[in-house]
Every structure is written in C-alpha cells, then in structure tokens.
C-alpha cells in the first residue's frame, strides 16, 4: 500500500480506502470482461448493445477514479451517441441487404 492512506476529507459518504480498492478492482475486472465480450460478439446488432453496456461500465470505473466530468462524457458519448450512430449504419446496411 502506498503511504498516502490518510483520507483527504471525511464526509458521511466517504468510502474507506480498503473498500475503494475492492470497488476499483471489481469494476476493472468487469471492464476487462466487457471489452472481451464486445470484441467476441460477431453479430453486429448484439455487439452495439454490448458496447453500450461497456460504456456504462467505463462510466462507473471513471466514477471510482474520481473523474465525474469524464463519467458524464463517457455516458453521453460512449453509451448513447455512438450506439445510435452504429445502429443507424446497421439499419442502412441491413435495409440494402433485403
């Protein structure tokens, strides 16, 4: 453990360092699993949903890294805007295939 274990500020919502480590490790494992899941789903439609869930997991990870700005940005872009663009492209590709 590195020396800076003292808590910067103690509020009713402060997460104790031990709990924060555990939280970060679990979310990191989930993010790694999410990335693998997104890459391994070959059906594009399902992959977009997996990407959206992956965006959510990343947003939670950034929250545990104390980065709310990037969390909001990852939520709006990663979990919402990109999947919409992907779905529109897939709709266009599927419509032409018919």
């Amino acid at each position, binding site marked *: 453990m590195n020396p800076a274990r003292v808590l*910067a500020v103690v509020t009713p919502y402060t997460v104790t360092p031990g709990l924060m480590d555990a939280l970060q490790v679990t979310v990191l494992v989930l993010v790694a699993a999410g990335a*693998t899941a997104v890459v391994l789903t070959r059906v594009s439609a399902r992959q977009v949903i997996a990407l959206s869930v992956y965006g959510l997991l990343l947003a939670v990870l*950034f929250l545990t890294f104390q980065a709310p700005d990037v969390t909001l940005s990852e939520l709006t872009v990663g979990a919402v805007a990109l999947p919409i663009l*992907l779905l529109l492209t897939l709709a*266009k*590709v599927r419509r032409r295939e018919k």
Partner: protein
Amino acid sequence: MQVFPFVVVAWILGVGLYGIVTSRHLVHLIVCLIIVQSSTYVLLLGVGYVTGAVAPYFFDVPVHTPAVDPVVQALALTDVVVEAAVTALLLALAVQAHKRFGTLDPNELVQLRG
C-alpha cells in the same frame, strides 16, 4: 493493486487489436477500434489517480485538500470527442463501402491490390 489497472489496460488494448485483426465485418472492426481507444482512457485516468483524494471540484471543499489530477481528465475529455468524430467519419465510409462493394468484409473490400 499497484500494477493491476495497467494490466487491464494492456488486456483491453490486446483484445481490441485482436478484434481488428480477425474482424470480418467493417462495423465490428470500427467497434474494436473504439475498444482500443477506450484503453487509453483507462490508462490516462489510472495514471492521474491519487489514492484517498477527492475529485478536483472545490465547490464545497477547501482548495488545499489533496485532489485527483484534473489535467488527465481534460485530456480524456478531449479524447472522447476525438473518438466520436473519427467513428462518425468511419461509419459514413462504411455506409458508402456497402453501397459500392455490396459487402462489408474487409477481405472483399479490395479495389487496389499489388
């Protein structure tokens, strides 16, 4: 715990590149490119994290409290928008590629060879 986040970063990068190399559908390849870029966010924010520190917003906290590095978050923000921009352009190219080639398999998308 010291190195684990960076192992996850290396894993996401490797999986993303694996997805790109073995992809047989252009939209799948573009999503794997998004995964490769997301590895840079986790690396950037992992590098700037300070254990036991608060987020860098001093609305309700005095200024000298130890806070996480804001510069890295600004870089990650810039990156998220760059990713959206490049992905939008790639998807537009994918739509036109499907019109011209009739398929989205990178192995068939070959007009210029040799």
